[in-house]
């Protein structure tokens, strides 16, 4: 809701069969606004998807100009330039906060005393999950930044795809 209010765009819907909500941006103006905001601030291989989206938007604008919908005086002014990956230090921006909110989880696990353990056990865990082998390098950078160990685990799902 806060994001929706901040961007003045997007629609919120409940995901079927799960306790989750999906914020969707469908309108062209909202997508353009988001692209203009996040362009040059991405750090992961998902930037390729952003480039594809920019290509699609630029292509759409060119077709607009052919039909007279674009400002003829400045035809190139609206073209979105693809900015490269961001390489600033992780502690210089709230990028990591957003990334953790999207893919991280904090867990507290309490185990009662049993035959093996005489005392109760409390375990705190922070997990950052990202699938796909191409994400290894920047995940490793995050682990180094947090002073933590990093390991890739392979989870066999029903689609048999490896996850890190």
């Amino acid at each position, binding site marked *: 809701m806060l*994001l929706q209010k*901040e*961007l*003045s*765009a997007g629609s919120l819907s409940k*995901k079927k069969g*799960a*306790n*989750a*909500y*999906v*914020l*969707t*941006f*469908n*309108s*062209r*103006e*909202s*997508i*353009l*606004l*988001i692209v*203009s*905001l*996040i362009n040059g*601030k*991405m*750090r*992961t291989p*998902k930037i390729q*998807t*952003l480039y*594809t*989206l920019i290509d*699609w*938007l630029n292509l759409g604008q060119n077709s607009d100009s052919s039909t*007279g*919908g*674009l*400002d*003829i*005086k400045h035809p190139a002014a*609206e073209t979105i330039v693809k900015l490269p990956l*961001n390489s600033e230090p992780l502690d210089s*921006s*709230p*990028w*990591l*906060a*957003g*990334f*953790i*909110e*999207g*893919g*991280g989880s904090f867990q507290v696990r309490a185990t009662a005393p049993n035959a093996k353990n005489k005392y109760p056990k409390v375990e705190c865990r922070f997990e950052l*999950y*990202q*699938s796909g082998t191409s994400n290894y390098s920047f995940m490793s950078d995050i682990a180094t930044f947090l002073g933590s160990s990093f390991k890739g685990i392979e989870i066999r799902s029903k689609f048999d795809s490896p996850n890190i």
Partner: protein
Amino acid sequence: MNFSGIFRDNTLEFFCCIIPLIVKKPSTDPSLETNITTSYKSVRQAAEALKVSQSSLFYHINRKNENININSYRNRYVVYIKRGYHSYPATFYSKKRLTLPWRDKQARGLRKYSSQSNHNKPDLFAYYLAGLIEAQNSAIIVPTSERSKKGQLNYPSIKITFDS
């Protein structure tokens, strides 16, 4: 002389002669073109005659234009709507053809953030948003083809899932 009889018999002619003198005031914005047209029976007929859809027009009837940003419009049409013996002027503003509505919205959105640049807030939010979109729970969906099999236009979308 019986003036009431003249008014009763020649109301339309009276308005058609007098009203153009009222509305032909010099425009405050020289770039805004004013087109004074003939009388119409209804707003719908006027819209059809101007070859623009009624919904795309923003019209004011006998109202001052303080709240209208004339820079957003390219053409202004002054028409006369006849209702029985009565006739009244209506001013139509057509949207700028050189500026698409979504570009206006995007510009407004960007202006909103650029106005806050003194506090470094837009950049911080943009970094957070970039992180959120790059996380596992978010997706940028770009259509591979312009149209679906049914011939409908495909649009890209950005989805952010929040689960608990």
